């Protein structure tokens, strides 16, 4: 329906109170293309009744003051970051109409990464790129889109290929990406150009309203002040000089065929959230008796081996088991300088009091799964401490005579059960059976819950039992008969 009267669109403020000074005109120079682009955008928002939903992201540059004019949501972005700010807005308010309005410094120079990636993500927004091939606000400096030979305050002898390379063709770059739905370059140099721009602006905004994705409209715009020309000459300059380098055409338009996509934000109940966060997997502690806790002396552990032997997991499962007794626990993996000798290792501390340093240097219990671990940590074990050696792999005996040592074929026991990886559970089963520190049933309860791969749960409980059985048959039995050294 053709309008009877063409007048200031309602999407503009009636009066520009935020501006100060002459509050019915813009701050733009006479003939500046920003004014035209603003009018076309405001008209489109008006005609499509999107004023309440629109969020205008203004950049840094001459149009940093766009929020003076647009009577809609406004958010001002740091230089070059409008597409990122727009992303944050759109992801938060999926029904918003996000407009990222940017100049050539903002988009083609400092913000080149942001625009490239917002486009590549197909962010649901309309980007209006005002290309006037110069930095207006800061006083006429060269832009990424300045033409070869163009004199500016920072290319006083004219832009040269050797020094500054070529004018950057953003629309062409955008069109190489798959996600953008609509990419067009147009100009404001004459009525036809302005009306083409009008169509492109409306299509970009309509696309967003229909959930079609990322639209990019590059608008060649006159900058009489920056180019030191009359408005008329500036418009001619666009047609004679800029259009050959920046052809005005549609580079890509899948607006009709593109499937709409509307991001839904579901609301969950607290229970659903708790479940999604996988909380409460270990169940509540079942402490045996207060006395146990009160008399518990702090125990420090070090589990060492190579990554695949599950030494880190062994520490975690032991700590989780100890929590059944309401003990304070800490676990920390080898990280940093102590990763010597290529061994993965972790420190575990169990205590009735708040734990200070979680890093165990002098363990009470040291479990080693391979030779480098024994070599590396053997002398750190406290006198009178317990050393558990995986004798399936480590052939040698310890040199220490002031400690208690268990040589257990952990890997063999585990592989006989059909799950070599469960050697770490065999270790824990053996340890608890030997020391009776914590009830074996707690370990069997916790082991499956602590493991990432749930399907191995039963096998791991079996491994715990196998470890305990080995100690009963090879250590405890021998102890009651005759304390002979263990083979």
């Amino acid at each position, binding site marked *: 329906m053709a309008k009877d009267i063409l007048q200031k669109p309602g999407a503009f403020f009636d009066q520009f109170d935020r501006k*100060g000074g002459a509050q019915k005109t813009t701050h733009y120079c006479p003939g500046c293309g920003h004014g035209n682009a603003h009018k076309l955008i405001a008209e489109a928002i008006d005609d499509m009744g999107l*004023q*309440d*939903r*629109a*969020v205008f992201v203004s950049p840094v540059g001459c149009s*940093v003051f766009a929020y003076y004019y647009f*009577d*809609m*949501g*406004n*958010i*001002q*972005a*740091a230089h070059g*970051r409008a597409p*990122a*700010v*727009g*992303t*944050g*807005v759109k*992801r*938060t*308010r999926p029904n*918003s*109409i996000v407009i990222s309005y940017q100049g050539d410094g903002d988009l083609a120079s400092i913000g080149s*990464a*942001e625009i*490239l*990636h917002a486009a590549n993500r197909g962010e649901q927004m309309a980007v209006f790129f005002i290309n006037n091939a110069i930095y207006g606000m800061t006083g006429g400096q060269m832009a990424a889109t300045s033409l070869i030979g163009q004199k500016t305050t920072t290319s006083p002898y004219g832009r040269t290929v050797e020094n500054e390379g070529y004018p950057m063709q953003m629309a062409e770059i955008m069109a190489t990406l798959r996600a953008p739905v609509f990419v067009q370059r147009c100009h404001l140099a004459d009525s036809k150009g302005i009306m083409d721009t009008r169509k492109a602006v409306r299509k970009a905004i309509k696309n967003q309203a229909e959930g079609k994705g990322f639209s990019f409209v590059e608008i060649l715009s006159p900058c009489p002040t920056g180019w030191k020309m009359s408005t008329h000459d500036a418009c001619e300059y666009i047609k004679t000089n800029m259009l050959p380098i920046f052809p005005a055409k549609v580079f890509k338009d899948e607006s009709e065929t593109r499937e709409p996509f509307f991001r839904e*934000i579901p609301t*969950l109940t*607290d229970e659903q*959230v*708790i479940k*999604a*966060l996988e*909380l*409460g*997997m*270990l169940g*509540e502690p079942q402490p045996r008796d207060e006395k146990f806790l009160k008399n518990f002396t702090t125990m420090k552990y070090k589990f060492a081996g190579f990554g695949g032997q599950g030494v880190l997991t062994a520490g*975690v499962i032991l*700590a*989780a088991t100890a*929590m059944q007794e309401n003990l304070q626990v*800490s*676990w*920390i*993996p080898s*990280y*940093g*300088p102590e990763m010597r000798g290529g061994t993965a290792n972790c420190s575990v501390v169990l205590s009735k009091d708040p*734990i*200070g*340093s*979680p*890093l165990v*240097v002098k363990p009470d219990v040291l479990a080693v799964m391979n030779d480098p671990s024994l070599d590396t940590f053997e002398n750190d074990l406290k006198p009178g401490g317990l050393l558990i050696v995986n004798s399936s792999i480590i052939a040698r005996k310890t040199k220490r005579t002031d400690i208690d040592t268990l040589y257990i074929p952990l890997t063999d026991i585990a592989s006989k059960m059909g799950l070599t990886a469960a050697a770490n559970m065999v270790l824990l089963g053996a340890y608890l059976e030997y020391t009776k520190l914590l009830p074996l049933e707690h370990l069997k309860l916790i082991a499956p819950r602590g493991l990432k791969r749930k399907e191995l749960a039963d096998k791991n409980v079996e491994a715990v039992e196998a470890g305990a059985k080995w100690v009963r048959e090879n250590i405890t039995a021998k102890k009651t008969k005759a304390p002979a050294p263990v083979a």
Partner: protein
Amino acid sequence: MELIKANEAVVKAAILAGCTQYYGYPITPASEVAMASAKYLPKVGGTFLQAESEVAAINMVYGASGAGARVMTASSGPGISLKQEGVSYMAASELPCVIVDVMRAGPGLGNIWPEQGDWNQVVHGGGHGNYKVIVLTPNCAQEMCDLTILAFELAEKYRTPVYLLTDAYIGQMMEPVNFPKERVKPARKDWALYADADSHKNLVSSIFMSTGGLEEHNIHLQEKYAEIEKNEVRYQEVMVEDADLVMIGYGFISRMLLSVTEILREEGYKVGLLRPITAFPFCSKRLEELAGQGKTFLDVELSNGQMLRDVRLAVGKDATVHFYNRMGGIVPSVEELTNVARGYLK
């Protein structure tokens, strides 16, 4: 009760605190926060997005916060440096968010081991302009949960970014954590952009061109920081009352100093520990009081003395402040620190 990695506890706590979005860029040792966010946020209808850089990430946070979301990001030293402009913009636009800085050794690329060398750029505002941000310094997995929830509360109460200043070791630890049982439902903010009729007049911006306008805004911000200093100082004291030597340390170092305190107290020495839980607002008043009581101090840090400057400012020129530090990712052992402290107690 969970046994959970501290870096992961931050994410679960954030979600329970009503956080719906995470924008970030991978960097050791903060990547676990990103990975946990990537795993859990989509499952609760939230948004996880890996940005093309930390610069883009903080500006996505700016946009999301401007649109009224509770939003989080995480990084380590080098990434925090890249985010500073964005943080200055958020402080100026009075936008709430939570930023986790899992510190690593610097400067430059440095290495991935723990250090406390971001105090200056985080606590004293590494970006441009007269701004400050609230900085919390957890030292265990439970605090990584509790202080995350507190961070979101304070961020909105004072409309400011809030940092969780932690480090590689704390992030890696697994400890028991009790999580809240319900999720916070943040109230609508009258200043934010909801893309609806009621909010379409709102403007999120940090530009003040009217004469005197920016000064007025600066004064308003300084008043806010004074309010924060009045109400939000937090610290923990262990056996400070009768202590001759008060050790000062935060984050992972405070865990080491707790062990040192236990050992030296058993040896009969009167030593105590003061642990800042808020780096800004700093516990200057309390330090001043302790200095007034004639205490001597031992500041222990993994930096060239970035917190030391604030301690010295607080205790004044008459107090004795010893300083012990390691840098470059080397973490002193409890034994090493015990010997240092004993040296000042003999």
